């Protein structure tokens, strides 16, 4: 860890900048920082937003002045140690039906990268990813890092309606859309997993710091698990 920086983010928030680059090795430090903030701020804590290299700490100004909140963070950072438990946490599996009807950019990747369909699937599902951040939408996990052989920019024109469960890739990041929404990532397939459910105890299937493996499944298994086989193209037509 380099020297951390504390940046003001408003009357009730500080941003702790721990790192400069995206790296899986950042995660145990960020997880430890989250835990320590929960302990130190207690009731005065409103929200924590961990991301690749930073943690946004939002506190109650009714209970803490800006300078007192900053002092708490300085104290925490003075003896912060990485949370090794978080770095060996559970690995979650996301079953994916990789198919051009639900993942039209499989064709783009074959064409642009000179790979066969099977090679694309093998490379995407052959890596254990780390959840660096949740954002964009509830339960949308930013995962990395994708093999450089699949590194592909976002679509020039985002789709109006990306179907729920779409497994996607942008640059060297991958994710799955929890619900139908606009989006510009390259779609490779679809998962039957419900990624966000406010009625569930932990609500989000993915949590920051998780390790994730995508597992290729066939159409039959996808349908048996409750997956919706409506092609991406058909979902677009409903919109217009």
């Amino acid at each position, binding site marked *: 860890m380099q020297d951390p920086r504390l940046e003001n983010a*408003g*009357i009730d928030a500080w941003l702790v*900048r721990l790192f400069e680059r995206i790296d899986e090795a950042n995660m145990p430090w960020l997880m430890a920082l989250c835990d320590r903030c929960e302990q130190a701020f207690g009731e005065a804590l409103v929200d924590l937003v961990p*991301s690749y*290299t930073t943690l*946004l700490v939002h506190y109650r100004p009714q209970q803490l*002045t800006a300078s007192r909140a900053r002092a708490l963070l300085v104290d925490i950072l003075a003896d912060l140690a990485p949370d090794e438990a978080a770095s060996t946490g559970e690995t979650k599996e996301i079953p994916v039906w990789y198919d051009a009807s639900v993942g039209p950019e499989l064709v783009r990747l074959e064409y642009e990268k000179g790979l066969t369909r099977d090679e694309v699937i093998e490379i995407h599902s052959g890596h254990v990813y780390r959840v660096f*951040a949740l954002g964009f939408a509830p339960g949308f996990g930013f995962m990395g890092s994708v093999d450089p052989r699949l590194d592909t920019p976002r679509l020039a024109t985002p789709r109006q309606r990306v179907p729920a469960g779409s497994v996607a890739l942008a640059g060297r990041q991958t994710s799955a859309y929890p619900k139908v929404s606009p989006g510009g990532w390259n779609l490779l397939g679809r998962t039957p997993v419900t990624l966000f459910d406010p009625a569930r105890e932990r609500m989000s299937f993915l949590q920051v710091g998780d390790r994730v493996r995508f597992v290729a499944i066939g159409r039959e298994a996808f349908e048996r698990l409750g997956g919706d086989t409506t092609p991406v193209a058909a979902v677009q037509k409903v919109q217009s």
Partner: protein
Amino acid sequence: MTSRPLGALRVEKAGPLATLQDSGRFGVRRLGVTQGGPADLHAFAWANDLLGNAWQAAVLEVTLGGLILVAEQDTRLALCGADLSATLDGTPLSPWQAFTLPKGKALTFGTPVAGVRAYLAVSGGFNAEPVLGSLSCVTREGLGGHHGDGKPLATGDRIAVAREATSATGSHREVPPEERIDYRQPATLALMPGAQIADFSGESTFRAFHTDWTVDTRADRMGVRLAGPRLDCRLESMISEGIALGALQVPPDGQPIALLNDRQTIGGYPRLGTLTPMACSRLAQCQPGQQVRLRPVDVNRAQADYLRQFRRFWTAPASGQ
């Protein structure tokens, strides 16, 4: 719900956008869930205060007017914020006051005269099932609101009132004149300079604070775009990180966007700084084409101003109990 609500307001006509908002959804932002809540915290807090409600009780945020509500029983209400040409049974009703809507009578919102968003509080607060601890309606996420599914009010809906809604009063019947805001005036928005301010060119930093910015038509609960001179930053984009309410981000086109209640939880554009809560409230009431100025403010000063402004609401006795 086990007990039948005592009363309700019936939606005769929905208008462009009316949503239930309490103080916001907190504690779940690390899952990507945004905070929601009233775009104008100042008018929201006064509307509840006039009725002696808990300060964070759910109110209706009425955007641009067009809404018609009918009371199913005599109902004590308070209206604050924008002047949307409201009428009570046909008689003009100005904002910043409490009033009774008699049974069977209509409260009608017309078109905006001043401001954009009106706040309608009911004695005891509106009632619905909270989602993730809040009633705040976030349409983009499909969370909260009167049905819990993030849908705004629709014609034919009934919105339930928490309890007997005719007796309660707050400490004031009207908001004191010095606390009412004329939203037609040019606004000055206090901004706490942020960490990336040094990455903007000197000229851009000067321009940021010496320009009459024009509020763009691209303005909603997620954010408000400001049009003016191009601000140049040597950082084109950054690794995405948590974004606070009021963050003023500057994408590569150099036109700043103030991020409001329904913003995405993380983002990767450099930020000039963060608007204060009062500045967010004020900006949320600006109509497209209105002029705003930015004024730098120190964080300690801004926090003291905020406490002075809002402390009265947290300590107000719930006299309607």
